[in-house]
């Protein structure tokens, strides 16, 4: 058998053959159509038409295959496939390529291992050691689940494409998963409505840098608005913001558009910035 990946043969193609084939496909140019009526070309076209007809005669898919395939694909849709907004730049930055959930789980593990070590060195305080060990076991379960999820994503993708593309796909899906399910996102009719909501949520602007930083840390601990999370465009980096000044990073719907919203403390006050799916700043105003 010919190597299926052998490059196409070089050299000119028989003009009659090429014309016959193109004419058969309705792809002959206006100046070629008259020549396609040449008997030689017509005979050749008839031969090629017979070949094309045989190629088109494909066996029907086995019974049940359609339902199986659709069901499996919809499982994936339900489990993993969060929707990417139209036009999003798929070139993720290096920070987006890191599975954030797995990194967070690993950091928790490292911290808890440290706690266990300290507790052990502290001597005979069995209660403290037991408590720390129990916490570690619970965390390991969570970490295992998260890692399994990440591995499922990566593995599923790796079987679906070449490795480079699979990594990109995996990273993209990971970033998308971090954005949460579409149904969980807040939706607003306008940026005014969004601003009202954010003002109510954040309260009065922080009067000092120290308080600003404290607010940011509190939100990060909450796990919902940590800078860098829910930030598929790397908006904080894109806007060249000091992470300590960032109060909110969140993906929401405003009208039909999915945007990443960043609220940060600036010199002139607290600002609301929105970045769309193509990583373009669409709103930048005082909150």
């Amino acid at each position: 058998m010919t190597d299926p990946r052998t490059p196409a043969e070089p050299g000119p193609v028989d003009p009659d053959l090429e014309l016959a084939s193109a004419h058969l496909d309705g792809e002959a140019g206006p100046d070629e159509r008259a020549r396609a009526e040449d008997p030689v070309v017509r005979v050749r076209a008839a031969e090629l038409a017979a070949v094309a007809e045989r190629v088109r005669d494909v066996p029907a898919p086995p019974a049940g295959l359609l339902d199986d395939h659709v069901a499996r694909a919809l499982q994936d849709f339900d489990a993993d496939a969060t929707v990417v907004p139209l036009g999003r730049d798929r070139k993720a930055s290096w920070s987006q390529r890191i599975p954030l959930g797995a990194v967070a789980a690993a950091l928790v593990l490292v911290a808890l291992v440290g706690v266990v070590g300290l507790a052990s060195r502290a001597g005979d305080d069995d209660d403290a050691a037991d408590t720390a060990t129990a916490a570690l076991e619970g965390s390991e379960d969570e970490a295992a689940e998260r890692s399994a999820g990440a591995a499922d994503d990566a593995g599923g993708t790796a079987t679906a494409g070449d490795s480079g593309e699979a990594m990109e796909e995996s990273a993209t899906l990971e970033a998308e998963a971090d954005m949460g399910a579409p149904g969980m996102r807040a939706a607003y009719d306008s940026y005014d409505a969004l601003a009202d909501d954010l003002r109510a949520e954040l309260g009065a602007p922080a009067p000092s840098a120290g308080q600003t930083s404290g607010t940011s840390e509190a939100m990060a601990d909450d796990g919902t608005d940590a800078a860098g999370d829910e930030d598929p465009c790397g908006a904080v980096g894109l806007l060249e913001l000091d992470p300590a000044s960032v109060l909110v990073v969140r993906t929401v719907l405003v009208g039909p558009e999915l945007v990443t919203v960043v609220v940060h403390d600036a010199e002139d006050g607290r600002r609301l910035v929105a970045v769309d799916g193509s990583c373009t700043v669409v709103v930048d105003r005082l909150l």
Partner: protein
Amino acid sequence: MAAAQRGDRAAMDVLLRRHHERIWAICRRLAGNDADAADATQEAMLLIVRRIGTFDGRSQFTTWAHRVATNACLDELRRRSRRPAAPLPDDDAEGRRATPDPSPPMDQAVSDRLAVDAALAALPEDFRVPIVLRDLGGHDYAQIAAILDIPPGTVRSRIARGRARLAELLDPGNQPTPADRPTTRP
């Protein structure tokens, strides 16, 4: 399609069902057998689900979906080619056991399909894929060029060459050679 992109499960279901048969046909002809085609089609459907958010509407959805499907099929086949090869249809255990063949002649349609599978398998991938996208995907040359990221003129010549090669393989006794073929040019 837009509803499916927004996460509408029912819309995705409809979309997948609408495109399944054509994608199956493409993968079936690229793979050359039902088992590989079934796996490749499944991979294609999964990739469409996973990547639908990246469809930006600059091309027809069918063109985009067939691009995803073609790449998925070829990737699947390349992975399989690195494993031990499965026996060819005319060289399997049943065929060897039946020498000389006491069974009734194989149904002509089945035999013809096997011959087409074998002939397509003998074509270089560069010829086979454009032919399949043209004859089973129903794409025009510009769409095939976009799917394969090659110039339309290359699509045209590869389809012509591939079909000529297929004609030779399928009906070797009835093909004019370049030397004895009449030409309209001096």
